């Protein structure tokens, strides 16, 4: 029994690490840049499929990290500087901006997803890398899962210290609290928001890379992960980066437990939890107010 519980918990943590990484990205994009980016999962899908395509040319998936992350960052940065900055300036209120930027990101979802479908087709893909079993406290897990978890935690912690310890991190935190006043204090607000959006996209890209090592992937996988990400971000508190990190692990655990009890209901349980949370505590577990 104890082994079974440990099994479920570790599986949940492994899943949760990936959720945490994607959710941190969205938390940056929504919490700071105010874009509820529905195309977030598409950046992840791009990372996953690029890694897969490179793997077929013999590139080690962990080396693709140096390719996926920067490319996703550049795409995100440019998108923010062109599309979303324009929307932000032309919107009368922050509420109107959130609405229109969300709809624009729906458009991006269809654009990115269908470019990927045209380029790579719709079939399910996968490759094996580091798939040998590792014994963790009596339960067996594939090594790639553990590597993925390790990367997710390292990236999360490094980014947290970046936010807390550096000047740019401080500017980002200031912009999250109040963009207008941060701008008055000398923060180049358009630049900082675009950086946040880019960082968010890069995290999604890297998460996609890690996911492609462990799970089968396909061009239409994005939306499902986006939804899970939104759930994690709401769970952790919109705009709270540590919150979304913790929220990822909590949701991973819940998913793992529900899958153990009734596999068909794991997604339904996520949505139910999410809607309940929105009604009862929309600010999340670490959110203010």
């Amino acid at each position, binding site marked *: 029994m104890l082994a079974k519980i440990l099994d479920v918990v570790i599986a949940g943590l492994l899943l949760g690490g990936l959720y945490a990484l994607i959710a941190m990205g969205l938390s940056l994009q929504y919490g700071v840049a105010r874009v*509820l980016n529905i195309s977030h999962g598409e950046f992840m899908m791009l990372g996953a499929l690029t890694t897969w395509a490179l793997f077929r040319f013999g590139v080690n998936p962990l080396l693709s990290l140096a390719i996926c992350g920067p490319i996703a960052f550049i795409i995100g940065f440019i998108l923010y500087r062109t*599309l979303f900055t*324009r*929307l932000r300036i*032309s919107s009368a209120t922050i*509420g*109107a901006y*959130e*609405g*229109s930027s*969300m*709809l*624009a990101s*729906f*458009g*991006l*979802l*269809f*654009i990115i*997803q*269908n*470019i990927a*479908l*045209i380029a790579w087709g719709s079939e399910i893909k996968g490759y094996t890398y580091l798939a040998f079993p590792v014994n963790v406290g009596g339960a067996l897990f594939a090594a790639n899962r553990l590597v993925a978890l390790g990367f997710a935690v390292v990236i999360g912690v490094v980014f947290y210290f970046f936010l807390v310890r550096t000047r740019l991190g401080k500017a980002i935190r200031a912009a999250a609290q109040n963009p207008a006043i941060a701008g008055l204090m000398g923060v180049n607000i358009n630049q900082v928001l675009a950086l946040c959006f880019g960082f968010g996209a890069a995290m999604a890209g890297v998460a996609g890379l890690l996911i492609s090592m462990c799970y089968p992937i396909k061009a239409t996988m994005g*939306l499902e992960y986006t*939804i899970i990400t*939104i*759930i994690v971000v*709401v769970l952790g508190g919109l705009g709270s980066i540590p919150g979304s990190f913790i929220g990822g692990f909590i949701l991973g655990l819940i998913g793992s437990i529900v899958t153990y009890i*009734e596999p*068909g*209901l794991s*997604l*339904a349980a996520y*949505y*139910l939890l*999410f*809607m309940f949370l*929105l*009604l009862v505590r*929309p600010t999340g577990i670490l959110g203010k107010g």
Partner: protein
Amino acid sequence: MNITKIKFRKSFWYGLLFLVFVLLAFLPLYASAYTVILITAIFMYIVLTVSWVIFSGPTGYISLAPAAFFGVGIYTSAVLGKALPLPIVICFGALASFCLALLVGALTLRLRGIYFSIFTFGLVLLIQQLLLWYEIKFTHTRGRFVIVVNNTTIYYVMLIILVVLLLAAYLIRRSKYGLALQSIGEDEEAAAHTGINVTALKTIIFAVSAIFIGAAGSIMATRWTYIDPYIAFDPLFSFLPVLMAIFGGMGQFYGPIIGAAIFAYLEELLLTRFPYYYMLTFGIILVVAILYLPSGLVGLVEKWRKGDIVEEHASP
């Protein structure tokens, strides 16, 4: 511009409207079967879009629930279709949607802005997943077959739904409730202070708009003959009405109708041959429309007309 000219214009438009209606009413008598099916699909999208605009247009609440109401209609038809006559099935579909919307409305309308959007979207996915689980667990089949109805009947039912919807939308827009919705969209606090029962109004209008989506779902199910939770609760039915309404422009009554008609026709042309390019175009148009056409095609037309009038005045 003098009075007779205005009167003439008005009667001209009414005449044209009547003519279009008569042409549509007798369409199956002279048009090919393909045309009838195509026009039915266009009607379906107009119904979805105009229903969405009834609530979301004036209030600015971006609802992503249409797919849920549509799916409820579809499933009502699949479950009751064999036991009951078609008109009753459609009424039940509409009623089920209405009840769901009433429940959701009462639960969520205190959520503001983006929270409302993601809640309604979560609703679509929740119902989809629960239904899938139920079907596999208890009925042991993923999908269901729906009774077959001939295309002409589907066409007429859709036409009736559309006409009733347009009348309802027009009346709501012109009534004091339409004005109240508009004021909620501009400033909810202020609207409440002027004596509008904000929550009740929002809930009722949300539910009324769901009636038509549910009815459209129940009749469209008979056209597809086979359905499963992924077909019935396809999130695309939530996104498409939003896009069509934005593209057409919500400032005028006819805007969403034009937007839906254009897109439904495009879909028919492109979807079967180049599905990915169709969806790609769809995304590009959505982004471009949000960036450059915040008031849609109607906005363009209005601009052009205003420019015309200004020129008229400018020339002595």
